[in-house]
């Protein structure tokens, strides 16, 4: 299957939907900082992998797909849910990349903070994409 970029999809998202993501993302980052300050890095670190904007994102996906299908005169409710389910399946695979990110940070950040973050981000992408391909082959 070919991976595609569809920049036209950006036009489907309304300005307030971008705003919701920005505010939720910002708020969750503040909350993660407050939790780490109050309960320490062991508990705080867990919230770096908290699905903060996932409910909002999945709801948007379902809404956009449903609207598109209904505009075409097709029943869209089930297709919307299936699209959100596919997105969730992708996030489950991407989580292995996130674990790789944490592993690199844990093992390298004391020795070389800047390189640890760069390598951790690259590892996230590499492991996530590899896991997605492996899942497709199985």
């Amino acid at each position: 299957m070919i991976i595609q970029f569809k920049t036209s999809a950006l036009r489907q998202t309304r300005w307030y939907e971008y705003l919701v993501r920005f505010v939720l993302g910002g708020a969750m980052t503040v909350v993660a900082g407050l939790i780490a300050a109050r309960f320490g890095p062991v508990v705080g670190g867990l919230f770096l992998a908290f699905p903060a904007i996932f409910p909002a994102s999945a709801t948007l996906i379902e809404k956009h797909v449903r609207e598109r299908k209904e505009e075409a005169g097709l029943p869209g409710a089930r297709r919307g849910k299936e699209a959100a389910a596919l997105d969730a399946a992708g996030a489950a695979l991407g989580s292995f990349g996130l674990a790789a990110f944490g592993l690199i940070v844990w093992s390298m950040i004391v020795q070389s903070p800047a390189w640890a973050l760069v390598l951790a981000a690259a590892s996230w992408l590499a492991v996530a994409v590899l896991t997605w391909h492996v899942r497709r082959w199985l």
Partner: protein
Amino acid sequence: MLEYGLRFLAGGIAVSAFAAISDTLRPRSFAGLFGAAPSIALATLLITLSQKGAPFAAVEGRSMIVGAFALATYSWMACVLLKKFLLSSWTATMAALVIWFVVALGLSAALFQLS
């Protein structure tokens, strides 16, 4: 106060950027990989490094591995609730949050004492 203002700004920008990339990608399951992007982690760790130092960030990274497995379980559960039980996205993803808390806190307590 300034620290938390910076966190809000950095987190908002990082989350919005990864979400916008995800919007443009197809197939949908590939775009979903970005639902587990390290957006909050990158924003947080950059500020944590300057405020609390690298050893604090390293412990956060170790806990993040556990959080990531909780996220995998959460996402899988949300997928099942959407596909098999046909719940709305909002209901499915909010209900599955219970799983995230159970796995994250349970595994943490089992592997390293919560402190």
